[in-house]
């Protein structure tokens, strides 16, 4: 199954969204939060993100969603510096909706391209 990594400035936001996505998609998908800086501060660290990707990766690829700004840049920087051989994919998607869409696609056994596309298509999903 495709793993999901949720990168946020906030520990609580990353963990809360991981819990929500697991609740919807089922516990069999690896959804790994990577949120917060050292000592509970707001921020994103390379080490947290790398560890979360490693936990999420079971060989079929990993989709990474980031909340805003420097979280996105942190992941981008990591992936551009050789921490991915193409099977780790940062997607341009809304954080909550993208995570839910990706998690459900992964739980249905879809492949990396399809899981990533579902997350990005979440940009166009209306709530009402």
């Amino acid at each position, binding site marked *: 199954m495709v793993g999901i990594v949720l990168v946020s400035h906030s520990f609580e936001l990353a963990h809360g969204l991981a819990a929500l996505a697991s*609740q*919807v*998609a*089922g516990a069999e998908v690896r959804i790994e939060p990577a949120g917060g800086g050292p000592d509970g501060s707001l921020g994103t660290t390379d080490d947290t993100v790398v560890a979360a990707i490693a936990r999420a990766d079971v060989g079929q690829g990993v989709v990474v969603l980031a909340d805003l700004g420097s979280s996105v840049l942190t992941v981008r920087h990591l992936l551009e510096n050789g921490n991915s051989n193409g099977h780790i994919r940062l997607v341009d998607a809304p954080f909550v*909706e993208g995570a*839910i*869409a990706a998690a*459900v*696609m992964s*739980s*249905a056994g*879809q492949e990396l391209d399809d899981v990533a596309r*579902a997350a990005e*298509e*979440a940009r166009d*999903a*209306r*709530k*009402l």
Partner: protein
Amino acid sequence: MPASSDVLVTLPGNVALHARPAATFVKTAMKFRSRLTVGANGKTADAKSILAVLALGAVGGTTLTLQAEGEDAPAALEALAACVTALSE
């Protein structure tokens, strides 16, 4: 290929089409190749899109309209209708 006729199925009274039940429904739909839609409350959603299905806001007891278009349409409709009937929180 012509669209199949509509199938109407009612959600169990205590099950809204949200969160886990919606994911169960979408995962069932994804097993088929046909184009599948689900309608409720005057809206129609791609049955394979979790976000679209969630946005229907279908509460327990809502009658859903299922439609399928494609080679496995009859089997898909049968499976989706059975899935809806069997949904639980």
